[in-house]
């Protein structure tokens, strides 16, 4: 019974948050935000690169690129671990 009430409260909280997010969402079709305008206007002075995509990737959203690099690192590490382990097992 206690578990049931726990799940119920979780569901109620989720529904509340989703409905709240629906209310504060921008109406469909409106220009999305001022962020992209800021980047388009100021990327060349602040990052000094002609390719604004590169400026966004490595300057404004550097954390995102760091996460991508971490994902790649984890993938390579996992692949090498598994392949080396299977190779050693075959040899012995």
């Amino acid at each position, binding site marked *: 019974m206690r578990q049931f009430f726990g799940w119920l409260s979780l569901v109620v909280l989720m529904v509340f948050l989703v409905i709240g997010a629906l209310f504060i969402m921008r109406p469909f079709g409106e220009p999305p935000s001022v962020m992209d305008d800021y980047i388009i206007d100021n990327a*060349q*002075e*602040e*990052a*000094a*690169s*002609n*390719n604004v*995509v*590169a*400026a966004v*990737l*490595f*300057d404004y959203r*550097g*954390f995102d*690129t*760091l996460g*991508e*690099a971490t994902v*790649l*690192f984890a*993938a*390579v590490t996992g*692949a*090498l671990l598994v*392949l*080396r382990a*299977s*190779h050693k097992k*075959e040899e012995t």
Partner: protein
Amino acid sequence: MSKIVRTVANQLILFVVIFGLYVIIQGHVTPGGGFQGGAIIASGAVLLIVASGSQEIKTWLRERRLSVVESSGALLFILLAFAGIGTVFFFNFLVGSRLFGGIPSVGPNPGDVWTGGVIPLMNLGVGLKVMAGLSAVVLALALFSGGEELEE
């Protein structure tokens, strides 16, 4: 593979590597960047492995060394990110300094490679990382899969 394929691949790998380095270095001026250029160079490694077989590649290219290169690329990226921590993490602290050129003029312009502050260096780090990582995975698959070697 046959001798023709091996010879052509040995000639072609130079152009593949040069094109990949071009995409990495020019990443902040033209479309491209570290990920794309690294993937191009890794495809060159795939070409060599397919052409001459993994046992021959093994004599001069080990996936352990490639792992070292990959980790050093990641370290370069993170150190460049930490270098600007006086202001903010990932701050572009080299913009406008004399070493890395001025700020390019707004509008269509030829594009100077020496602008961009830390962005080209970060591109280089990410390019090293992607190149070595993908090559290491492909080489490990070719070496350790235990399948039959392609002959003739």
